[in-house]
């Protein structure tokens, strides 16, 4: 049932459903945030990285003698030096290996070749130009198709690697799918490329490594979305004892998936600090960020949909070729090499699907990270929503009606998808109906019919619909791990004698507002005001182990852990309350913040109980009111929504603009509606960017085009559309507070809505696909039947 929940707690307590203002804002609005580059340790040195100017070359020699002559330069470190310590290569989070500093070959433009350690960042960067590297250039492989066809081996150092295939993977059932296609009344196909993009958080990546040469203690300050996992990887890579590694992540200026992997810069800075005995800082430049760390997407997708004579979908086939770059350095769960792409059956009810995926090494930067996305869900959602839209147009049914005809119905949940997911809950018709009503769908269709029917019209209206379903919150330990680390998450809660609390998390905020929303979960469960709860994270010495924040897993997993640990504490509090009230436990009623003896006005507050836990605990009970929980989710959560975009396309110059957009999201129970809305408007803008302007491409020599914010476009306030937001609430039945996660929904769901709007405008002019970004010259070319450069 779709209902909007009224808060159970008072605004002062600020539990679930209150749009309380963010606790973290006070420091940010005063310029008192603690971002990595704000950290300066005594005696700290600075590192700059020499990167390859070419995409594929053998390294004949590196001469760093001139750089060493420069005053202020303390060291130049090359791959050869690291090799002596077994550190020239490191494992990736996807179980591949990646060069820390190149030894044999460089495999992409921008690859790390050497570093300079100097007393000042300007000196370190100056010295880079004094390092002489002799490169012998090799064929640059710049597409996955070329990669699979060539005999040139990119990963020739890798034992047993005889081709350029990084992985293969499949899901679903081929036989039943083939049979459905053989019996289909109509088959609709779509070939599309989801282009390479970059999360590009406004703060780039960086590290300050401080290894104490006497104690061996390594304190590593890092921009990491997953500090605990990184600590373990560091222990494995560097052979450092794990108890002597402390990863500290302070405020992060946005992450979006960019700050999940381990990057060579982190490892070399740590090695340099170990070698020199002083703290070493490395801060990525924007160009380094865009050309070397954490690209996303780059999926070439072939897909087909089988329809029966009643326009019901009966099966889907998809065949994916992903461009992995030089190293398979995504952070995909071990069992899911193409992430959770098999959510590509989307919001639709049909029995058969078969998906195959192959990843190819190319001479491009490694990545494939989940950019604001739960492991390739974005690509999957884009594909099915584009495919369904084209199917609707081909059969001549309104795209919203075609979706409604094929949606999984509310009474079918839990729903087993043909690729094996068990959707926990949903109400797709509800979200669609709400979105149509909000935007005035029928009126827009009428206006479109009128305006577009004029054969001389130069402004065409298009209405784009996308009804996405995500799968987030990795994940149940039987299926989900990264490098063997199960994807549970944790919360530790300490209630102090005065009733104030500290909550320590294994997840890691990057701007999502965890200091506020996680305090609100405790407030909901215990009735302690959210303002009395300090939320801590990002220090591996002082927080419980967790896999971090990405793939919309904070609320589904860490939020669940927070609710469960709060309930554990409430159970103990009830025993304490019974002791204080001299009543039986089962005779107590609970309302947030207070135990009352049934049928009386005798009560104690949670604060009274907390004080008693340290001053008056009963004989036979442990003192204190603290707990820790490691939450292993029983299932993933499945946020969904319907987005509708009205766009106007200028047939003269191919530009298009958004006239109106409605986004109806159902992320289950909303903890802080204000913060949820902020996540959505931000995510919609990142989706708009991809549809409208943004991509990273390469020339035939493997030169990266898109290495700064003048080439890799990020929308400003001027280009960004205005949005209207709506909600339905279908709580997750298995999540302790019914929440599902929302940080990524809009980035996942919106690109197809924007693209569909443009295609919807142009369908009657014979245009059935334009790949993102839907740039003006592509629109113009498609309209005029002219092949244009990409």
């Amino acid at each position, binding site marked *: 049932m779709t209902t909007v929940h009224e808060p159970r707690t008072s605004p002062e307590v600020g539990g679930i459903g209150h749009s309380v*203002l*963010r606790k*973290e*804002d*006070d*420091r*940010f*609005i*005063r*310029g*008192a*945030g603690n*971002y990595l*580059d*704000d950290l*300066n340790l005594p005696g700290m040195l600075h590192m700059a990285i020499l990167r390859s100017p070419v995409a594929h070359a053998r390294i004949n020699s590196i001469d760093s003698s001139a750089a060493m002559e420069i005053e202020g330069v303390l060291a130049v470190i090359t791959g050869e030096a690291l090799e002596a310590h077994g550190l020239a290569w490191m494992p990736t989070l996807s179980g591949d290996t990646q060069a820390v500093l190149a030894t044999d070959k460089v495999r992409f433009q921008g690859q790390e070749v050497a570093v300079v350690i100097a007393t000042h960042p*300007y000196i370190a960067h100056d010295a880079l130009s004094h390092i002489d590297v002799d490169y012998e250039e090799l064929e640059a492989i710049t597409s996955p198709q070329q990669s699979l066809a060539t005999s040139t081996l990119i990963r020739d150092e890798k034992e047993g690697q005889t081709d350029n295939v990084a992985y293969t993977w499949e899901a679903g059932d081929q036989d039943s799918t083939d049979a459905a296609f053989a019996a289909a009344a109509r088959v609709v196909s779509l070939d599309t490329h989801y282009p390479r993009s970059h999360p*590009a*958080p*406004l*703060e*780039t990546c960086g590290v300050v490594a401080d290894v104490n040469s006497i104690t061996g203690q390594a304190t590593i300050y890092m921009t990491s979305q997953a500090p605990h996992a990184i600590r373990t990887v560091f222990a494995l890579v560097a052979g450092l004892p794990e108890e002597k590694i402390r990863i500290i992540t302070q*405020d*992060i*200026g*946005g992450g*979006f998936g960019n700050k999940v992997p381990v990057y060579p810069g982190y490892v070399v800075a740590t090695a340099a600090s170990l070698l020199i005995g002083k703290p070493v800082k490395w801060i990525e*430049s*924007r*160009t380094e960020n865009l050309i070397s760390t954490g690209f996303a997407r780059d999926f070439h997708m072939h897909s087909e949909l089988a329809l029966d004579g009643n326009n019901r979908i009966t099966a889907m086939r998809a065949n994916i070729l992903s461009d992995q770059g030089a190293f398979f350095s995504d952070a995909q769960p071990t069992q899911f090499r193409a992430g959770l792409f098999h959510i590509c059956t989307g919001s639709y009810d049909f029995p058969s699907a078969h998906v195959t995926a192959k990843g190819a090494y190319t001479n491009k930067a490694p990545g494939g990270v989940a950019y604001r996305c739960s492991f390739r869900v974005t690509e999957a959602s884009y594909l099915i929503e584009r495919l369904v839209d084209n199917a609707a147009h081909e059969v001549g049914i309104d795209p919203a009606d075609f979706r409604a005809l094929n949606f999984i119905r509310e009474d079918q949940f839990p729903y087993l998808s043909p690729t094996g997911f068990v959707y926990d809950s949903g109400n797709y018709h509800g979200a669609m109906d709400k979105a149509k009503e909000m935007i005035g769908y029928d009126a827009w269709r009428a206006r479109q019919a009128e305006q577009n029917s004029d054969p001389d019209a130069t402004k065409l209206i298009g209405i784009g619909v996308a009804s996405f379903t995500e799968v987030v919150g990795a994940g149940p330990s039987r299926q989900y791990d990264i490098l063997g680390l199960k994807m549970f998450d944790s919360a530790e809660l300490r209630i102090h004698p005065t009733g104030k609390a500290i909550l320590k998390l294994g997840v890691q905020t*990057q*701007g*999502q*507002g965890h200091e506020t929303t996680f305090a609100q979960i405790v407030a909901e469960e215990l009735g302690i005001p959210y303002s009395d709860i300090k939320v801590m994270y990002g220090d591996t010495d002082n927080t419980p182990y967790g896999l971090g924040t990405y793939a919309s897993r904070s609320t589904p997993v860490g939020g669940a852990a927070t609710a469960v640990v709060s309930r554990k504490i409430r159970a103990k509090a009830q025993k304490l309350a019974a002791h204080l009230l001299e009543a039986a436990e089962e005779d107590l009623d609970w309302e947030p913040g207070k135990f009352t003896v049934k049928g009386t006005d005798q009560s104690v507050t949670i604060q009274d109980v907390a004080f008693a836990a340290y001053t008056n605990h009963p004989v036979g009970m442990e003192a204190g009111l603290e707990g820790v929980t490691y939450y292993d989710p029983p299932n993933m959560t499945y946020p969904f929504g319907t987005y509708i975009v009205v766009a106007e396309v200028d047939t003269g110059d191919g530009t298009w603009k958004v006239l109106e957009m409605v986004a109806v999201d159902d992320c289950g129970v909303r903890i802080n509606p*204000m*913060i949820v*809305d*902020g996540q959505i*408007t*931000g*995510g*919609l*803008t*990142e989706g708009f960017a991809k549809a409208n302007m943004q991509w990273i491409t390469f020339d035939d020599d493997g030169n990266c085009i898109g290495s*700064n*914010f*003048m080439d890799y476009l*990020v929308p*400003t*306030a*001027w280009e*960004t559309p*205005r*949005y209207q937001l709506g909600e339905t609430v279908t709580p997750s039945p298995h999540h302790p507070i019914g929440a599902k996660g929302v940080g990524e929904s809009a980035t996942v769901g919106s690109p197809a809505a924007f693209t569909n709007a443009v295609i919807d405008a142009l369908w009657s002019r014979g245009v059935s696909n334009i790949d993102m970004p839907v740039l003006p010259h592509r629109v113009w070319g498609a309209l005029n039947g002219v092949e244009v450069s990409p």
Partner: protein
Amino acid sequence: MQITVNINGASETRDVEPRRLLVDFIRSDAGLTGTHIGCDTSSCGACTVLLDGRPVKSCTVLAVQADGSEVKTVEGLAEGGELHPVQAAFKQHHGLQCGFCTPGMMLVGSALLEDNPDPTDEEVRWAISGNICRCTGYMNIVTAIQAAGGEGS
């Protein structure tokens, strides 16, 4: 060469390399880390400060160019412990998430409101179009700046 820059009312005299960027002077020499660096190409505006009252991207100004000038950074927005209306409005209207662009956005907003206390949505968007935010989608930033204007007028 020796320069003197008045930052948030305090005079900073330093010997700097001619090539030293104003943003590095502010962050490293004056120790005011509220001004951020986001792109190095004057595209993102995270390093925006007010130079003699005008917003500039301090990654594209040499420190020596600021000799004898007054610079206001985010740390100088609040006066006497009292938040500037723009600061209060950014919190009130959820105009920030990760906080990295926020100092630049607030300074541009404050400069806009000096000239135009009641800007339209379009006027705010144009004013902040040199500043990138990756988190919010801008709607709440625009609302915050407009609300701060309403408060001041």
